């Protein structure tokens, strides 16, 4: 595969100090809050308990939506990674990180609610032989590794390309997790899809659909904020680098001006002064060594004399 140079931002810059919010995201945030309250009322007061599972069934209004929406997060990470490798887009790298983090968050929520649901229903917190549980945990760990890896690579372009490979390998697990209850039907306590078998009716189905909408809105709201945060972080990183370069260049210019203003300073001193100059440190250091060597030789000659 031909390698690509990661391109720098093509999205409009976000004003420093403007934060990650906007009027639209604030409206979306308020809609999320209202949605959570309405979902809570429907889930706990308006829907009835299950004849077999009792009140525990209310967990599906959270568990099922987050389990499905988690795939979108990892999907965004995969698409973003493809775009990083194909087009070298840093915009997509930022989107990939945001998607992976949210996928991980929703995956954690899914595992957590599943564990809580499993205790009264299956009489166990965790079933080691269960295909769905194990594959879900592996997916969680794969993307945990992805995020941990990103923190270890300092260079942004290298980080983007390398982590894209990890995200793309990780996405293989998504269909495995999703199909695990069918592929290993005799190795799981987990029931088949509650949506496809048509067992849910009326208000229960409506409340579940509302769960999808509410957790979907929360996902979008968090995604926008996380993306903007990542973008600001990248800008700050670039700004810091540019500021450091500008400072070094200014220092170099000042040194040159000073050497022009005082032409009587010895050549060896000038060259040693180059250690502090911007540009190539190696060359400056090398010049310093030559200067010191010349001084040393001069000292030797003086001793001999």
């Amino acid at each position, binding site marked *: 595969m031909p390698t690509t140079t990661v391109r720098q931002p093509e999205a409009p810059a976000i004003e420093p100090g403007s934060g990650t919010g906007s009027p639209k995201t604030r409206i979306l945030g308020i809609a999320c809050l209202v949605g959570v309250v309405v979902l809570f009322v429907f889930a706990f007061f308006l829907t009835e308990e299950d004849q077999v599972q009792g009140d525990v069934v209310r967990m599906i209004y959270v568990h099922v939506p987050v389990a499905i929406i988690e795939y979108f997060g990892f999907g965004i990470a995969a698409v973003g990674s493809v775009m990083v490798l194909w087009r070298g887009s840093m915009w997509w790298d930022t989107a990939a990180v945001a998607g992976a983090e949210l996928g991980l968050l929703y995956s954690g929520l899914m595992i957590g609610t599943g564990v809580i649901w499993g205790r009264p229903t299956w009489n166990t917190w965790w079933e080691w032989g269960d295909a769905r549980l194990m594959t879900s945990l*592996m997916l969680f760990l794969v993307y945990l590794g992805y995020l*941990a*890896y990103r923190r270890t690579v300092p260079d942004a372009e290298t980080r983007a390309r*390398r982590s894209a490979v990890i995200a793309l390998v990780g996405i293989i697990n998504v269909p495995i997790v999703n199909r695990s209850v069918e592929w290993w039907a005799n190795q799981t306590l987990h029931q088949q899809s509650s949506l496809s078998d048509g067992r849910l009716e009326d208000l229960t189905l409506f409340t579940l659909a509302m769960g999808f909408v509410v957790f979907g809105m929360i996902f979008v709201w968090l995604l926008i904020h996380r993306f903007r945060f990542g973008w600001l972080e990248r800008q700050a990183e670039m700004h810091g680098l540019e500021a450091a370069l500008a400072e070094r260049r200014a220092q170099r210019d000042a040194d040159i001006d000073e050497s022009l203003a005082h032409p009587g300073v010895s050549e060896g001193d000038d060259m040693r002064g180059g250690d502090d100059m911007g540009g190539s440190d190696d060359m400056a250091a090398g010049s310093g060594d030559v200067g010191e060597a010349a001084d040393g030789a001069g000292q030797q000659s003086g001793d001999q004399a």
Partner: protein
Amino acid sequence: MHEIVAVATKDLRIEWRSKVVASQVLPFAVIVLVLFGLALDADRGTLRTFTPGLFWVTVLFVAILAIQRSVAVETASSAFEALRLSGAAGWKVFLGKAMAVAAQLAAIEVVMLLGVIILYRTSVADPMLVVISAVAATIAISTAGSLYGVLAVGMGVRDTILPMLLLPILAPVLVAATRAFDDALNTAAVNGWTWTVMLACFAVLYAIIGSVAYAVVLEDT
């Protein structure tokens, strides 16, 4: 093919001269098998029942060391640059390095199998299944490991990040290999050939992904 074999031969020749895998990694594998025996209180029934799982967990630990070693020989003298300059395609370098790791792992697995037969009193019921499933699992481990090994190059935390990245990816391979050995060693009533097919799928999948992605990663090393 010539370049793949050349890279693999180079790695195996380095190992033959340095004897790091033979003198350090192999004893480590035996030590882990012994520690499992001690931890399980020398209960041979338990050991025999769980031999497949203990065997493949040990292989994964050993694989981490072998992969780190495979990367270390390239980073120690900036040999990755030489590999790039050699003009060999990235996928050929990848397959060559994966082949060398697979060969080393296979040798260690043979010794480990003898170890579990002697130490755990395990008997092999289906030698053909043992060989084929082990070959498929070893290829899957070495291909995924070679890709992730080079991903960890150039970072101060290579030793810690590699297991964190690699082991979750290899978890399905661990499960499938353990089930296949369950059948081959007659420790559980499962169809080992079905799991071997899955192992083969993972081996092919990781080999393809690694071949495609290796060049991208190698460029950054």
